[in-house]
């Protein structure tokens, strides 16, 4: 549902945009700022950003959808990303991903009903030497395995 100008959401969007719009190449910093503010990029922000940077809505939408890290919806409290690239797959990444889905009861890009976890695939975290790799929120995890997976789930759910 789009919200009309003047609502609290619009004010927060405008504040972020105004703070960053003078930067060179302001679009990505603004999108990061919006995501930091809301946890995702609300649809309502697209026309505001477009207007501030003198871009079209299409321009902004193209960039938002190009980067997987910009979310359309809020994520759970924690985001677990499991690497799906070649090196990790070679060391059991596929099985680990399936285990995570089974343990959490969700697929990729989904959030558990208790809103604790969002599970995401990622393609290379730069840790191929210690594959398989994962990332919990902003924390990298090397040599990821079922034990570490179970610990994480248990700790966060408890």
């Amino acid at each position: 549902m789009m919200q009309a100008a003047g609502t609290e959401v619009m004010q927060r969007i405008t504040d972020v945009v105004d703070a960053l719009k003078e930067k060179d190449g302001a679009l990505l910093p603004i999108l990061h700022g919006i995501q930091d503010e809301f946890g995702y990029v609300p649809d309502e922000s697209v026309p505001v950003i477009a207007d501030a940077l003198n871009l079209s809505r299409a321009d902004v939408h193209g960039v938002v959808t190009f980067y997987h890290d910009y979310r359309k919806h809020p994520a759970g409290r924690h985001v677990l990303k499991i690497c799906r690239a070649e090196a990790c797959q070679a060391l059991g990444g596929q099985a680990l991903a399936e285990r995570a889905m089974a343990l959490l009861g969700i697929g990729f890009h989904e959030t558990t009903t208790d809103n604790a976890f969002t599970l995401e695939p990622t393609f290379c975290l730069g840790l191929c030497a210690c594959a398989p790799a994962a990332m919990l929120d902003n924390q990298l995890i090397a040599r990821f395995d079922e034990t570490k997976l179970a610990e994480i789930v248990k700790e966060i759910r408890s």
Partner: protein
Amino acid sequence: MGLIHEIDFGTPAALSDKTITLTIDGREITVPEGTSIMRASTEAGIQVPKLCATDMVDAFGSCRLCLVEIEGRNGTPASCTTPATDGMVVHTQTGRLKDIRRGVMELYISDHPLDCLTCAANGDCELQDMAGAVGLRDVRYGYDGDNHVRAKKDAGINAKWMPKDESNPYFTYDPSKCIVCSRCVRACQEVQGTFALTIEGRGFDSRVSPSAHELFADSECVSCGACVQACPTATLTEKSVIAIGQPEHSEVTTCAYCGVGCSFKAEMRGEELVRMVPWKDGQANRGHSCVKGRFAYGYSTHKDRILNPMIRDKITDPWREVSWEEALAHTASEFRRLQYQYGRASVGGITSSRCTNEETFLVQKLIRAGFGNNNVDTCARVCHSPTGYGLGQAFGTSAGTQNFDSVEHSDVIVVIGANPTDGHPVFGSRLKKRLRQGAQLIVIDPRRIDLVKTPHVKAAHHLALKPGTNVAVMTALAHVIVTEGLADEQFIRERCDWSEFEDWAEFVSDIRHSPESTETSTGVPADDLRRAARLFATGGNGAIYYGLGVTEHSQGSTTVMAIANLAMVTGNIGRPGVGVNPLRGQNNVQGSCDMGSFPHELPGYRHVSDEAARDVFEKMWGVTISSEPGLRIPNMLDAAVEGSFKGLYIQGEDILQSDPDTKHVAAGLAAMECVVVQDLFLNETANYAHVFLPGSTFLEKDGTFTNAERRINRVRKVMTPKNGFADWEVTQNLARALGLDWDYTHPSQIMDEIAATTPSFAGVNYPYLDQVGSVQWPCNEHFPVGSPIMHVDGFVRGRGKFIRTEYVATDERTGPRFPLLLTTGRILSQYNVGAQTRRTDNVVWHPEDKLEIHPHDAEQRGIHENDWVKLSSRSGDTTLRATITDRVAPGVVYTTFHHPTTQANVITTDYSDWATNCPEYKVTAVQISPSNGPSDWQVEYDEQARQSRRIAGHLEAAE
């Protein structure tokens, strides 16, 4: 006769003067430096397979089909993105390339429907062509993998499939057929400059998205059709092609909407128009179009079109359909009777800026030779007559100085009183392209038009002046340039009259013309104005483009002169990238002026008192031409009310809707005894007519239109006139009924007569136009190939004339009763009085005229968005809905005039330009108040219009 096929060179032409020579498949070819290998091979006659490349947009290199091998280089570079270099040896067809291309095509086809036989693009599909070109015989991947093609997948739904978007009235978007070449996205960005399309997502998820994943109709799309033209598949397809099928022959013709004069291919199947496609070689539009020319031609077959002549004794009677013979005989006898009874000067005619040069020429000839007076006028009276007068005084010719290509060389562009993105969209796109390349823009307009701020374009200055203060602002700009020593003295000494300049410089230097002194009356901050003046004087090539916001004022002619002064004082005349450019409103308003449509001027702007000029026509026509100027439209109406003017022949103009002070026009028409209207529809003026002669559309006749850059473009007949005759034939038949011995069998003979009598057209004839496409007048022994830029080596009048431009505020002033200023304009999807565009699907974008009002003024009056409001002036009142926006400043309101029910001209006053009587449409003092619905006048008018449109024997059409 067949389809005109245009070669797609794959990438745009390189503009370098330096050439290089390379060898492609054993053929040597010389091309300008910077040319892509793809374009060079096409020029050598070798078509490299391609999908994402087309010469309307820059190379992109994404489809990987156009790969080539170059001797001495590794790999297989894309021929579209690789520039040709001297001595290069290129192979476009090797075993390795064949394998790669086939592999690429297999991938494309594995995610594309195989319904070629029932596909709308069958026969016009580049994917199909490329499958053939690369010898695709098998798709090893099968068709059942991940895809965007099928709605269902393994008994479930396919999330990647998207339904067709049919929201645009003219074309469909079928994502299942898209190959994501992004030609549409790039066309929207590079050619149209709207940036309404993007590629959303990435990888296999990529797809074309209008705005932020919206329907086309809800998106930023302006429906110019560039994406449809760019699309190599059936993804974006005209609905008319889906309905009819592929065209089988085409003719190049000229759009009949605005003064840009775009060239189109009318693509036909038999006598049915399948689609209008902009012609790449069209020198005004360079292959681009807007929603009107590209799609809004449905009026030509609309059910409202009148196809039989009709007469009636009184305007309160219903119409009676009669034969052509009876209608013309009746008209002739009525005009003869009126002239016998009330004198030779009691009748006159109005030529049309929508008709061809040849038709206009005939109408004025009918009046001058047949009626024996000079009572001829044209709708330019209400639009650009001040341009004719002002530029004629300053430079010696009454026309724009440049061609449209000139904008590609401009550095600072002033747009004053014009809204190119709505009124002249194809020029607007070309202008925006130049602005994106870094040119600076100064907008002088009371309203924040789109150009002030639109994606990727921002004006350096927007001088939001109060309506009616153009002269003060222009003179203040000149004040800054002169007093700050920014005048181009060398240019002025060489080209202009120095003593006139000195006189003018003294005048503008007066402190009362300084921006600080004028600030209070114009509302333009002095500092902003000073900076704008400096930018224009010092920013490089400066060009001025203007529209009716300049001319339709009581000081319209003065502003035109002020514009000419500004161009001369900065030396911006006589080369590419500069000049004074009136954006003419109608397709042939330039031509109708050229053809002697004014009561005081013979064709070629020669005064009727000029004996030599009269002599040429008198000898050729065998008649005596009156040396007395005739009546202008407003004078005709005044004379009618007084009882001395009784008969009027109006070809293709709706004066009741387009001329000021509707009630006065109605009274004038009602006082006449024989009003003859020749038009496609029973327009508003026809409510007061006694004879209706059905007109023909631009698709049904041969002829020429002259656009705003003086370009004479051919109009070609593609179908038989549904009413039986082209307009020139109707005029000829009327002339014959009046006893004149006219015997033209083709409009080319009329053009020959024009060329023989009018020096600036001396070199123009149909064979020459067919050969060169189009030509810009003057075209004669001095300028054998025409004149893209005028005043190159000196002004036509000799020396440029600086004229003092004293600002005199209009008599139309705000006061306690009428505290707001109303100004009027156009919107993209509608055209003028809307007679045509209202009869097309363009109404989805603009079903009614709305009043734009600033939030502050709205709040004071308790007006909310979409409320009915009463708009009243000293002349009258009307009602319409309001929309609240800060595009207009407080104290200013704005509306369009496309719908007859709005009756915006009931409001406008009869003030007019001091020199030319051009009405002051752009300034009216008004008051706005909440209202419940239509005013008494609107109700009465509707009833009268309904009554007067009755045709005996026809049931009244339900609305």
